[in-house]
């Protein structure tokens, strides 16, 4: 069998923004991936805080100082938005997988639901857990 001739293929995402205009469906898909990855920073912060609590008063004092500072508040608030966005977008994926919501207008509407839903659920969650 002859070896296939090597072809220099373009590397994704070469289509954006040169040949493809970003729209709600693709922007909301991209945001799903971005929020999913961004949350890892918060996961690291939470685990540091938890292992510090398990270790000593001194270790906890430092981790808790960071976690409850304005920086901690900012990270937790942003990642709460990222979490709710990723949560809603994930539910949307399950809905798509069940072969629903793929008409263009519905798909675009669901993108708005993810963005607006996350923005509404974030302050509600903060109020609930305080």
């Amino acid at each position, binding site marked *: *069998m*002859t070896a296939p001739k090597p072809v220099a293929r373009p590397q994704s995402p070469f289509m954006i923004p040169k040949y493809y205009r970003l729209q709600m469906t693709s922007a909301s898909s991209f945001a799903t991936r971005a929020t999913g990855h961004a949350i890892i920073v918060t996961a690291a912060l939470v685990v540091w805080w938890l292992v510090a609590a398990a270790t000593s008063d001194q270790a906890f004092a430092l981790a808790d100082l960071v976690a409850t500072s304005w920086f901690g508040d900012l990270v937790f608030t942003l990642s709460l938005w990222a979490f709710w966005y990723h*949560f809603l977008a994930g539910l949307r994926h399950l809905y798509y997988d069940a072969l629903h919501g793929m008409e263009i207008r519905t798909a675009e509407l669901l993108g708005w639901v993810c963005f607006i839903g996350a923005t509404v659920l974030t302050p509600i*969650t903060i109020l609930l857990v305080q």
Partner: protein
Amino acid sequence: MRYLTDRKRAERLGSARRGTEAHWAQTISAVALALMMPTWLVVFGRALGGSRDSVLATFAQPFPAILTALVLVVAMRHFARGMVNMIDDYARGTARKIGIMAAYFIAGGIGATGIFAILKIAL
């Protein structure tokens, strides 16, 4: 030299019979996380800001301890698969290999640290 296209080479060999495991695993873990995370957010959010003793008391209880351990395991596996998926899309060659390793190392490191903390607090 045979003038065969890739498609002709592949025809009649049958399907690969695999390739959807990653998607299915993400679906299962997504549903698990969707069920667990809202409750976990309340557990963690209420514990955050308390004294060390109150934090230890919270995560020493069975429900918060088990929930946090489950969330850690499922979320880190979900994250690792998602990151590998992204790297498969955007990187080739050595960068891809290193990226995939990094995905598992990050997820494994955070997961193991969190599980250790929960075990130490709860047991």
